[in-house]
């Protein structure tokens, strides 16, 4: 299941990240990497942009990027 499919305020575990190295490194630096918990906090109209919580950091990302994050609901 992809991060974009998560419901608001639902918690999930990251299982895999696809995409170019630069994007992966960026996500890593925010603490988005496999085995870490991720919560969807808010999304904009039409789900074009998502706000997620990882650790103590709120991160905004586009649906394009969120599509590359494979998750598992816990």
């Amino acid at each position: 299941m992809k991060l974009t499919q998560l419901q608001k305020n639902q918690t999930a575990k990251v299982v895999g990240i696809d995409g170019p190295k630069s994007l992966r490194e960026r996500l890593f630096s925010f603490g988005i990497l496999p085995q870490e918990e991720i919560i969807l906090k808010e999304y904009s109209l039409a789900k074009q942009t998502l706000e997620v919580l990882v650790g103590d950091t709120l991160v905004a990302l586009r649906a394009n990027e969120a599509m590359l994050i494979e998750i598992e609901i816990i």
Partner: protein
Amino acid sequence: MKNKIIVALAGQPNVGKSSLINAISNAKLKVGNFSGVTVEKTEVIFPWRDEVASVDYEMHIIDLPGAYSLTDYTLEEKTTKSFLQSGEYDVIVNVVDATNLQRNLLLTTQLLEMGKKVVVALNMIDEAEKEGIKIDEKQLSLILGVPCIKTSASQKRGIDALQEAIVKVHSNQFSYPKVVYSDPIEEEISRIVAFLEEKKYQIEVPYRHLALKLLQEDEAIFKKLHHEPIWIELLPIIKDSLSHIYLHNKTKDLSKIFAYEHFAFAKGAKMEVMARKTMRAKNMTQKIDNLLINKFLGIPIFLFFMWGLFQLTFTLGEIPMDWIDMFFAALSEGTKEFFGGGNLGSLIGDGVIPGVGAVVMFLPNIVILFVGIALLETTGYMSRVAFLLDGFFHKFGLHGKSFIPLVTGFGCSVPAYMAARTLKNENERLITLFIIGFMSCGARLPIYVLFVGAFFAAEHAGSVLFLIYIAGAMLGLIAAKVLKTFVFRGESEPFVMEMPKYRLPSLKLIWHTVYGQAKSYLKKAGTFIVAASMLIWFASNYPNDQVLKEQYEEKLALVETEEKTSLLENEYKKLALEQSYLGQIGHAIAPVFAPLGFDWRMSVALGTGLAAKEVVVSTLGILYALGDEVDEESEGLVAQIKANIPFASALAFIVFVMIYLPCLAASVVFAKEAGGWRYLGYLFVFTTITAWVLAFIVYQIVQLIGV
């Protein structure tokens, strides 16, 4: 003798680096950063005295752009990474946000691997304490192997201790920081270290550091060892070690493997040193977010804030602008009187003083707008703006943050170009800069009012004006899409952005930011604008045809009625402008505009519009021999325009004015913000061709349907 210490100040964005640097240097020194846009490094130099050892130091603090990690993702991260790798410094001070320890320690582990002296500043400790976060900095010091100092820039806590630690680390023998890795990697490190020990290999760095760099496939180290005899024996060991690591991690991607290692270390370190009692602050930000980035309420709230900001910028800003205008007008008159109407008086009174006035005039706008933007930035709201609007703007190759410079463009392009600094991606910033001109600025309004008033009934004028503005904005978005597709191509950059915690703004930081902005505007834009104003003054006053002047002076001496005098004066002004360089240029370029239905007068007026859009109306006044005391409401001018300009040409003229190059002041600021004069060349070509083509189409269509 003074000892020089060069300190590289590194940290993630939003950790209060700028505030800390202000606190350290006592805020006596200029720190001219726009929050978040420290793309260039700033250096702060100040003396510091070690009282105990009574040694004087000269501290050089180099403020590096904020970086989440040492990668090449953003321009900031590239700048920081390359500076840190250059090694042209003595000590790294790593500023860490104590309220977000784990993520910040990720960068710390990367910094520790640089093999340099490091001091960690646990900044914003006051905020962390308020949030119920307790950090054992002594334990953290032991784990990292470097001094960790609790600091708070706002409360001036730990500033002295930090400086002492820097000096101490600087003068002490260097001991390598320790990052501990997972067992499989530690095993391979020990294996390589054991081999090096056996060989008694001579190198200035510790074996552990060398082994680690070999496992990370560090290019510099490989190049160095490549020419050494030990290489033949070392190579198979490294190969073997790496294959063990690959096997264990089920991947051959070393950057990924070490990213996991760094993350695990940072997480482990945080667990050991940090205890948290409540979650209050975190919830606070999320509660505010529930409202501010709400799907339905977010955008209306944002629009309300924007409305307020523009009201302040352009309504409040107008008051000092009027004073400045009056002051410079009086100064200009006074100067001309003082010099007695000579050429020097005219140069200073008509060229230099109005030029300086035009620069200073924008200052109130810039200051108010930038206080507003600094507020949005420092409170953390700007990231929410990007979140709310990115979905729409991304479709046109722009970014959510493009909204603010674009809307500012409706007021004035000068602050709008400067506001584009909030965009960090180079392509998105350039596209935004290129289309700001499409948002018709306030100075174009008189031209629209004049032409709309002349050709449309009064009851339609409002709607036509509105249409002009909307059409401009839509054209701008289309132009953005075109630029994105054909010029600023390349992968659309991923959008992954931190939503920083909401914070109360620091007045001091805002003051520093705005002061720096205003000063750099006055200095850089000022010199060019004054020079260019003088050039335009020259072009419109020379060659000075003495024969013509005398001719008219003779005629003027003969007439008695005031009416005739002013008529003759106006005629003289018209002829003088026509034979000046500017008039000659207008005549020369007239054929270019002929297909658009413009006569030479309109061509000259467009030319003077490059100096300032307000001038277009007064130039038309002069050229229709009505004198220069006309404005867009002047009935004489409206009648003249109606009589002399066909409807199709008038519409084409409006379209051309909508799109072509903004005024001189804006052009200079554009060149500076875009990063070079060649960009102004591109903008000139881009806007002129677009304006010409669209005006041509409008002219032809209107003629065809024969309105």
